[in-house]
């Protein structure tokens, strides 16, 4: 198999509040012989909030990020659901609106860049599933996670809007019955837990402005996993991770019951199955202690 190579858009969170996500991404990439060229020039995607304030500016900045992936001639790989959405949405809008693309390029040309539309965009979860292949991953598992009931938490922006995400992922995901993360858990030898909240919102994006709403949504998500006897949760989104991992106290108060579970990044789960050490995967960085290793 030809060596897989991607332009890595880390997003902001992996460089700050979830350092373990970046560590485990590199650890897993090394095990799978995937080459990652980090887009160190990239800016923040706006996280769907800059877009509320200045839509054109967010388009220009996201187009600039993609332009750098194009310079490498590589598919851009993201490790954050919200980065995935904002980048893919920018690409969709520019690829379907030549006037808008020209207007954005007028700005990018000021700094010697051009958005061509030649790079595709995918999330690391789908790079593993679509490009690397779950069968091949299964063959590489050295520590099957068979002892664990693992609750997948998909996060919104990888599965909705489905029309957009189905443009970027080869795995066609039904947002009401998503399977990618479940399939990944099974490939790692774990038992996937089915629960109602697995494709629901964690509330991250209103954490500051509507904390009660955010806390209830977080609490319901963790409680859903707890009620199905999950040992831990796993997510492809660092924003969901932050909410579920660090806000268990607020969430417990909001829903009136004590709930807390370890919440792993999907890269950490794959890394455990592939035999990476807890140091390589940054397991010490979790607020909800990862105490089962």
């Amino acid at each position, binding site marked *: 198999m030809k060596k897989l190579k991607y332009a890595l858009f880390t997003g902001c969170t992996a*460089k*700050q509040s979830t350092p373990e996500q970046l560590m485990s991404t590199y650890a897993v990439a090394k095990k799978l012989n995937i080459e990652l060229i980090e887009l160190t020039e990239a800016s923040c995607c706006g996280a769907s909030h800059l877009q509320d*304030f200045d*839509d054109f*500016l967010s388009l220009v*900045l996201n187009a600039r990020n993609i332009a750098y992936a194009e310079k490498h001639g590589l598919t851009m790989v993201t490790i954050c659901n919200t980065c995935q959405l904002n980048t893919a949405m920018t690409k969709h809008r520019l690829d379907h609106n030549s006037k808008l693309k020209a207007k954005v390029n007028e700005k990018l040309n000021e700094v010697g860049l051009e958005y061509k539309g030649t790079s595709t965009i995918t999330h690391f979860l789908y790079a593993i599933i679509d490009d690397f292949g779950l069968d091949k991953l299964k063959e590489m598992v050295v520590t099957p996670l068979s002892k664990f009931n693992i609750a997948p938490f998909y996060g919104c922006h990888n599965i909705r809007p489905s029309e957009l995400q189905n443009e970027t992922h080869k795995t066609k995901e039904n947002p009401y019955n998503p399977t990618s993360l479940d399939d990944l858990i099974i490939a790692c030898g774990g038992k996937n837990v089915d629960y109602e909240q697995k494709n629901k919102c964690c509330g991250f*994006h209103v954490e*500051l*402005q*509507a904390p009660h709403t955010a806390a209830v949504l977080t609490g319901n998500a963790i409680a859903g996993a707890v009620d199905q006897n999950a040992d831990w949760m796993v997510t492809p989104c660092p924003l969901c991770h932050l909410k579920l991992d660090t806000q268990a106290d607020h969430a417990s108060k909001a829903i009136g019951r004590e709930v807390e579970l370890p919440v792993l990044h999907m890269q950490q789960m794959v890394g455990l199955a592939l035999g990476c050490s807890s140091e390589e995967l940054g397991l010490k960085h979790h607020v909800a202690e990862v105490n089962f290793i």
Partner: protein
Amino acid sequence: MSTHSITTQKVNFRVFRFNAGDDYLPYYENYTMEVTSEEVVLDILNRIKWDFDGSFSYRRSCRHGICGACAIKVNGRSTLACKESMTTMIDWFGTDLTLEPLSIKRAVKDLIIDKGDFWKKHDAIHPYLISHIDEHPEMECAVTPEQADELNDADLCIQCGACHYACPVVEVNEDFFGPAAFAKAYRFEADVRDDAHITRLEELHEEKQGLWDCVKCFECAEVCPKEVNPIDKITKLHQMLFKEGVATSNVATRHAVGFKHSIAKHGVLDEGGLVLYSEGPAIIKHIPVALKMFRKGKIVMPWAIPKSDNLDEIQQLIKSSSTVKF
């Protein structure tokens, strides 16, 4: 000659039953039937009533995806029963399907719900054109095709409630207007003939009920049977708040604007700095969580915030491409 052939499959339906007049708690009835590839969900509701139990109740009217009466939930997904094919439902969910009202807590009889909260919120956003028209105008009020295009898809809303009862915030916050009301508000905000832009926007800006409580989960866009895409309208209304000068300084608006400031300074987001900028002195309430994160190496000190390479490019683009000031 058509080569299309009709296929059948056995499907198990688990159907929500409840009569507020008689029942203390809801229950589910099971019905199994052969379903053809030609049928839509409404056909199944009709067959349950006609073939199994005449007392089974649900709303239906036009059968053409126009009246919005027959929206229900299939395996938790809001669905306009007369529009959604059984083939799609079986493809998505398999042959065990649960039919429920849009909102279980608002159920009155079987799949019929009390949509009072939906209509109250719909009415609250002044869902009509407010225009001070001269009684004796000298010329017609011309709307260009481009201006009409701005509101056309929002105008397609049939008020079925699919998005409203799919919205997780509506479930948690009873004051929240919800995606359908926002899409309707946009329909008039985008109408060049409307004179109530500012008044309506001010109401949409209010905390707890307004736009800033949207969690951006895209459930509303996913379920809308008419492709109104309410979250897209919510985003456009957010932008209008800034452009029309209605946005006042609060935690939500500073949170949006803070991204620009942070990107201008670092390229990437300074996460802690953004919380400080958004919350102001109220940041104190985040200290317990921040301490836990700090102990786990999840907080980067202000002096160590990473910066994007070629930051000067980003700064130049922000300078030349910014379209909004706040």
